[in-house]
């Protein structure tokens, strides 16, 4: 992920052109996004077809008779040529129809509206935690470069990088839920709070607030906090490393020296002037790690019984439920590309040197 930043950074240096160029880039971007999306779909589609999992078998089960099997084969349109199947699918997607999942017996769009908010909620809190802890940690590490505190922050961060998530997840659950009783267990809320708040955004934290159900809100928080901390640990490791590196670059700049000479307090110099200048690349870093979390972590979701998009796509994949896999991939692809585009634009618009 560093690469995207490094690249845009380099482009920024060579590219000092103002607005018209940006607009041209924008149309270019839209076109290339469309192409990327079609490519993405094509690759997923092909993977789905070459997989040695029989999609019909996945629907009718092991014990179906040949007649049942053949009928399902036809109903699923598998007797048509591959290209035709793909084009039909593209047409459907263009009109907002992602098809019906064979596993859940309902429209994929409806499924995604159910599972994606769960992942979104988790990823958002995790990223917030990553930012709240990671950014200050990175700044401090930069100021005290080489000191024990820098090394400590680095070590803690690297621990986060190196820990198998399922191991950490189970251990966390055992300690904080099983032994200490600090947090609630797996799932999004306690069972008896299930299905009470009406669906608005699909994110329980927000929906419960909208409905004024504060009990549910706090219950949901005590459920989300452990998996969010776990995922947040991974993004905090990354965010603090990048913050440190950006800040080091800034601290060597002249304007920092000037500000110090002018007699501004060290706090103002670093937290106001320094941090403001690294904000843009930093946001890119955050956006990228956010995007990575939005893919949904299959393993974390499995351990915490979190009904998110990672599990959804994985189960679908194993059952050759291609409508669901394609739909999920499209959503994640769009999110990824959108966040990428967002950070690219941010560079071009806000970068002080491009102004």
């Amino acid at each position, binding site marked *: 992920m560093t690469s995207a930043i490094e690249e845009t950074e380099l482009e920024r240096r060579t590219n000092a052109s103002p607005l018209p160029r940006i607009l041209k880039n924008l149309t270019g971007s839209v076109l290339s996004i469309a192409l990327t999306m079609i490519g993405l779909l094509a690759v997923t589609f092909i993977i789905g077809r070459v997989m040695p999992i029989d999609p019909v078998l996945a629907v009718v089960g092991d014990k179906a008779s040949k007649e049942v099997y053949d009928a399902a084969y036809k109903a699923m349109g598998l007797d048509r040529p591959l290209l035709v199947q793909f084009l039909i699918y593209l047409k459907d997607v263009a009109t907002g129809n992602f098809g019906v999942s064979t596993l859940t017996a309902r429209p994929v769009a409806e499924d995604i509206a159910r599972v994606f908010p769960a992942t979104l909620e988790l990823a958002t809190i995790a990223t917030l935690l990553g930012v709240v802890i990671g950014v200050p940690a990175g700044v401090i590490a930069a100021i005290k470069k080489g000191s024990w505190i820098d090394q400590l922050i680095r070590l803690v961060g690297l621990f986060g990088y190196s*820990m198998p998530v399922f191991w950490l997840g189970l251990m966390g659950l055992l300690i904080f839920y099983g032994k200490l009783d600090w947090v609630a267990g797996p799932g999004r809320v306690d069972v008896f709070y299930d299905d009470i708040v009406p669906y608005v955004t699909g994110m329980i934290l927000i929906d419960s607030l909208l409905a004024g159900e504060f009990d549910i809100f706090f219950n949901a928080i005590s459920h989300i906090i452990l998996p969010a901390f776990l995922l947040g640990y991974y993004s905090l490791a990354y965010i603090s490393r990048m913050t440190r590196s950006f800040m080091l670059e800034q601290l060597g700049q002249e304007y920092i020296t000037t500000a110090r000479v002018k007699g501004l307090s060290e706090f103002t110099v670093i937290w106001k002037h320094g941090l403001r200048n690294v904000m843009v690349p930093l946001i890119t870093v955050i956006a990228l790690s956010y995007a990575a979390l939005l893919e949904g972590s299959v393993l974390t979701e499995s351990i915490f019984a979190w009904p998110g998009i990672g599990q959804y796509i*994985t189960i679908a994949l194993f059952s050759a439920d291609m409508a669901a896999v394609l739909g999920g991939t499209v959503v994640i692809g769009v999110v990824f590309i959108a966040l990428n585009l967002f950070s690219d634009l941010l560079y071009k618009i806000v970068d002080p040197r491009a102004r």
Partner: protein
Amino acid sequence: MTDMSQTHHQSWRQWLTTDEPTSRRHAAIVQFYLGWLSFRSNILAMAGLIILLFLVFVWLFAPILATHDPLAQDLSLRLLPPSTEHYFGTDALGRDIYSRIVYGSGITLYIVTLVAVTAPVFGLLVGTVAGYLGGWVDTVLMRITDIFLAFPKLILALAFVSALGAGLENAVLALILTAWPPYTRIARAETLTIRNSEFIDAVRMQGAGTMHIIMRHIWPLCISSIIVRVTLDMAGVLLTAAGLGFLGLGAQPPTPEWGAMISFGRKFILDHWWVATMPGLAIFTVSLGFNLLGDGLRDLLDPKGSKS
């Protein structure tokens, strides 16, 4: 080393640290040595290097280090806690976990080495070609890269493995498939800055071919940032491999692959913690080793970090 005779009156250290190198090779050696000195002073990075050397050591001497046959089952000895007989305890089928971890080091090295030598090279090739040639080649190659980048990583790996069938080789292939796009982007970015520099112009004027320029003049300049990135990525590769093993798509049983070991041990985690924890610690240690090393290399090679 061949220059030894000319400089026998100088001490080693002087020769290695001189700022007036006598030859181009001498200069390279001096630079390497200075780098080594600075690297050596970085305790954490050294720790990383030592961990990885230790891994290689374990792999080489596995038959000597192991106390048991890693595949030998004994159902009467199952789930024994760590003891002097079984350092890390035994697993659900009564196999010695310590010996399995020792033998598993080879598999870990296999995965890591294979990914480390293929994905970056492929990424480097695509990225430098795209960056150097520009135009539609660039557009096409980078769109393809984007497609793979926008793909959910584990999903891509999962799909790939289930398409080809579960197994260590296919798992490694899948890892390579998900690992290359970032290298492409790094390499392309570096190439863009180098492409129009004077020395490339000069080489071009001498009539060098495109591939020659890319491979002989651009690649060497990209390599340091790629190496840093590779070491930092290896931990991720290891963890993704473990994730595939966890989902039953990695190495096939009874291979002592660490990720698969954790996967099978998680069932016992509440009462027999060692079954999953020991391989977990092994993965953690090696990942940490790669991360520490990569971090150290980054400080060393990354001009931004070291100049301030």
